[in-house]
């Protein structure tokens, strides 16, 4: 067989619609036999927090308030027309009605198909997060050099 194709995604946004894009690409690529590397940084870290809702997690008062306000992957806002969190709920309902995979389904499929999850070291320091605050599927906490090395020779996207 030919050498395995590779897709690496820098997941910077913590928006609901962009998270859908990340996990649609990740699960789809993994299903067609790509190696998939997801590198979560800044608001993207909200997608991989162990706590899906809101929680005072992290080190330091300011970081804890920040993380509470940001929330986890069940609290991601729509990038436009969020209406205080009503729109992601309505959008999920629409997706279910139309037999399109929802964010939790795409997220679970990405894990089941072996996408690799990595977290950005620098953003974790800023937000006072440690690896214990993240889902156990996160393989490693990395920096730029390691990400460049692992994404070399494949396609890289920034979402």
């Amino acid at each position, binding site marked *: 067989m030919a050498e395995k194709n590779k897709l690496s995604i820098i997941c910077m946004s913590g928006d609901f619609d962009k998270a859908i894009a990340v996990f649609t690409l990740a699960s789809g690529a993994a*299903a067609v036999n790509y190696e998939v590397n997801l590198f979560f940084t800044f608001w993207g870290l909200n997608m991989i927090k162990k706590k899906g809702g809101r929680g005072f997690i992290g080190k330091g008062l300011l970081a804890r308030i920040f993380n509470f306000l940001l929330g986890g992957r069940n609290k991601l806002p729509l990038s436009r027309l969020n209406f205080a969190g009503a729109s992601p709920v309505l959008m999920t309902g629409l997706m279910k009605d139309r*037999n399109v995979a929802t964010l939790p389904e795409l997220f679970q499929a990405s894990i089941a*198909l072996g996408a690799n999850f990595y977290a950005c070291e620098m953003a974790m320091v800023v937000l006072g997060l440690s690896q214990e605050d993240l889902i156990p599927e996160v393989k490693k906490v990395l920096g730029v050099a390691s990400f460049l090395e692992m994404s070399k020779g494949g396609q890289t996207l920034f979402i």
Partner: protein
Amino acid sequence: MKTVTLDITKDHCPMTFVKTKLQLSKMEPGDILEILLTAGEPLDNVPRSVVEHGFQVLEVTPVKDNIHKVVVKR
């Protein structure tokens, strides 16, 4: 050796090939998977994704309207 049927006629990208891949990963080498899918994107891409994994597409036949059956050997 067993035969399993997977109906993805109501699914859309990427769940069409995600479900196919997940089902194939639960099966043993030599098992047969019969996939029911619609013409267009699923018919164009699901057989291709299966071949990409090194599995064999034995047959592709129209069933009714725009529904096709793809038979895959794990």
